[in-house]
């Protein structure tokens, strides 16, 4: 299982929506293998990530991007590698 958290702005911008859509496509590609939470940047949980600039994408505790949309192919590869790692263990 790979844990994905998306920290979005209280007033979501286009980048927040684009990030969420990207995560949606990943969830569709890996049904049941990913957990996903969307957190607003003013929520207590967001403090743990040291909010800098939403959207922030956190994958298995690693902040992948802040304030920008990640490269979809790169993100997919990272998630697949993490899934393979978790299956191996």
């Amino acid at each position, binding site marked *: 299982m790979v844990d994905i958290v998306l920290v979005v702005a209280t007033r979501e911008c286009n980048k927040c929506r684009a990030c969420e859509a990207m995560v949606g496509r990943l969830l569709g590609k890996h049904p049941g293998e990913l957990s996903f939470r969307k957190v607003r940047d003013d929520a207590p949980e967001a403090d743990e990530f040291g909010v*800098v*600039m939403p959207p*922030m994408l956190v994958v298995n505790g*690693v902040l*992948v991007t*802040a*304030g920008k949309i990640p490269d979809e192919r790169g993100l997919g590869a*990272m998630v697949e590698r993490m899934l393979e790692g978790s299956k191996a263990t």
Partner: protein
Amino acid sequence: MSIYLDNYATTPLRPEVWDAMAAVEFGGAEARNPSSTHKSGQAAKKLMRAARETLADALGADAEEIIFTGGGSEAVNLALKGSVWASGLSAPHIVTTAIEHHAVLSSVAWLETQGCSATVVPADLRCRVDPQAVADAITKDTLIVSVMLVNNEVGTIQPISEIGAICRERGVLLHVDAVQGMGKLPVDVDDLSCDLLSCTAHKIGGPKGVGALYVRKGTTLMPLIHGGGQESGTRSGTQNVAGIAGFAEAVKLAELERDDTWARWRGCRQVLVGLQDEMNAVRVNSDPDICLPNCLSITFLYCDAMALATNLSMRGIYVSTGSACSSGDLEPSHVLKAMGLSDVACHCTVRFSLGWSTTRDQVETTVAAVKELVDMLREVTMPEELGKCGADCPCFVKA
């Protein structure tokens, strides 16, 4: 325990400084307001005098030439606005550089709205200002030149003595922003040939909210703050006696420990510089030949610096980036841009700045974390077609 490598932003307060400050407030002398005529006032005045002498000694100045302020930015504002206002000129010209701190650049920009004109001299790829460019920028209307001693993002030491000689010859004032240099470098105002020099306590283990301006005898300034006429009438307001005593203690320690501190910083810098050899597409922007050893600006191309810094922060390692939040977006650093770094490179740049408490172990831990995180983050942000970029690759530097 966290690892604090953001000492160019501010430094942790030194315990010795805290003790010196506590002694002012809670010591037997009961030092209070130095303007008061009773014993506790006189005790405060005595402490202020000692602190002023400590600072003056460190700068090669006389105690009467030191004006205490509420910080480095106030000192800079007083130097620039105070000298322009005191000049009585309707449209004086100011020369400064593209790599100055915003305290200088914003003050100059404001003075331009009040009728002044300004010339901003560029810097080279090593973040160094050419003294000849400063000389060329001086006109018959130039009142003052303002150049920093050490750059706050890259650590480059500027050729102030050469610039000072030019200013002296051309009959214009020289203000030196020594906020990042004082206490770290030996500073002598006569060697620098400067008329005004700003410094602050909190970059060398002193308290925040305390700074000073050196004002050469014969240089006139109009005060920013009017009131009780403290600080020889140049800066009114009851002095922060405890803070000033702390500033003096921090200066004493910095001067006393400089050689040992530099040796430790140099060792740490070697560990950080090693990242350039051990990883692809890494450029060290701070040239060891002309930079203070406690500042390393490093570009990790195709790794988002904000993401890197935030992940390091989540692990208790604190650094800063070459971008700043501005109007809801990330603005590349004006210093890195002035050096010629591309916007992409600016967004991939991290500043590691070492302080009095930094250890080699801390830096080694940081380097290990950086390697792991950069490799991971590049998977998401690094284009597949990227090869091994060298330090002169156009990915880093604008053609």
